[in-house]
């Protein structure tokens, strides 16, 4: 296994990303030192490598990646893993708005709190939030699953069309076209398999606390309950 180290200090994002992409063709693991909350890190990376960011990342960390496993050791700004198609983005700290915006696949894990509009227009994939998730989480969600171990704020699942949001804490309010239903045995088994694999070791009784937010209708028409009215 070969490893490559990049010192991002005093380098612009474009230069760092060029170096990542070049090194990704010849190495299995890349470590970025001194990222200093830089924007766009690893944007468009399509090689299935392991990328360690030793610090915080700025906006759009890991946007449009396909297959890479990115581990951010501190925080991330807005839109980490935006439009990812495959891969994994793990953030040890907190993250800003739009975590996993529009993802088509892969897994995003944030160990602490995140901002607003988590998983907006996501089509598939999984987002796990260890803390709280903010306003309009799951906005226009079209598939996949969001798992929130803390509380979820106002208008959860606003205009959700497909997919599910699992919330262990409190739901402040639901958005339009969202409803709460009970978890199935299959849902619970999936959570029990998934969460410990990312270091979230819940007690058996914790799984009873989860609520599941799903769409009321698959094709909502505004002002009516459904296309058929």
């Amino acid at each position, binding site marked *: 296994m070969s490893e490559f180290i990049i010192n991002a200090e005093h380098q612009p994002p474009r230069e760092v990303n060029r170096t990542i992409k070049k090194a990704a063709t010849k190495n299995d693991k890349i470590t970025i030192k001194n990222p200093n*909350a830089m924007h766009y890190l690893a944007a468009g990376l399509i090689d299935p490598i392991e990328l360690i960011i030793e610090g*915080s990342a700025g906006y759009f960390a890991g946007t449009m990646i396909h297959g890479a496993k990115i581990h951010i050791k501190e*925080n991330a700004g807005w839109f980490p893993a935006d439009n990812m198609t495959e891969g994994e983005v793990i953030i040890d*700290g907190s993250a800003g708005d739009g975590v996993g915006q529009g993802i088509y696949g892969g897994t995003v894990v944030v160990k602490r709190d995140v*901002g*607003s509009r988590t998983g907006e227009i996501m089509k598939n994939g999984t987002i796990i939030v260890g803390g709280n998730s*903010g306003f309009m989480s799951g906005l226009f969600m079209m598939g996949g699953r969001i798992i929130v171990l803390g509380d979820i704020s106002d208008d959860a699942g606003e205009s959700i069309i497909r997919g599910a949001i699992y919330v262990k804490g409190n739901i402040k309010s639901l958005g339009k076209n969202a409803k709460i239903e009970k978890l199935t045995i299959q849902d619970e088994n999936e959570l029990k398999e998934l969460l410990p694999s990312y270091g979230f070791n819940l007690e058996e009784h914790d799984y009873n606390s989860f609520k599941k937010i799903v769409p009321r209708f698959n094709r909502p028409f505004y002002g009516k309950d459904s296309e058929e009215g």
Partner: protein
Amino acid sequence: MCGIAGVVFKDKKLHPVGDNLTNMLDALQHRGPDSAGYAIYGGLGLEENEYLLNIEVKEKQGLLESVKKTVNIATPIKKEEIIPSVENYIIYRCKIELNTFSKLKPLIMDIDKIKDVMVLNGAHSFEMIKDIGLVKDIASRYDTQSKMGTHGIGHTRFSTESLVDRYHAHPFQSYIIPDITVVHNGQITNYWKIRDPLERKGHIFETNNDTECIVHYIADKLSKGYGLEEALEQSVKDMDGPFSYIVGTPDGVGIAKDQLGLRPGVMAENNEVFAIASEEVSLREVMDTHDIDQISPGETRAYTI
């Protein structure tokens, strides 16, 4: 897209706030290249009733003398300084004394009547620096790195609606009560709904810039006995549009964010420092912390010393 930043040193002692804000704003330079500005509080050391005027004057024969004459008619100039700027302008700074704060705005309006002259601000407890260009260039031009203070706010501007010039650079100041400043990222979409009642009260608007509207709104609320946090909370209810803005007062700073959370705002604090900014990269210039708080939609935060 603009960058905003604010910092407070909790011990109330003088710190290199100019240098801190320069580094915070430089880290946000990518958010706006048009102009930048600072309001650095606590380091001016003026006596009671003394004020510092910053006046933009075109380099034209006899014009500076006209400015000095107008000021001297109102009150003797106690100290003066000329700072070279760009595009054939200089910044004329002078220290004056007035009997009451209420005389300051009329004097400023008198000076503004002179063609090719604009008073950028007049203040007692803070130093305003704002100009067109990049943060580092402005910092060098005004020697901001040497400016000491207890707290301050700053801005780097990406102009959207109004002009790119020194006057429209942030911070904006209100004269409803002394020494209130605002830096802002976003748009106030119900601008006229906010402005009209303020104008009917007699508050004077110099521009159509929505940041000027915010600073008058906040100063009006503070003048009516609202606390800083109360004024910020009320503004979130009253104002529409995407915004996050930071207020500077002689006692502290505060941030407010719109109810949909469409503009960024993060904060961090430790035992010594309270800091807020558009992005984490800016906070890291003043503190070594791993704990960053996202300001939530509709949320306000403030710290007063």
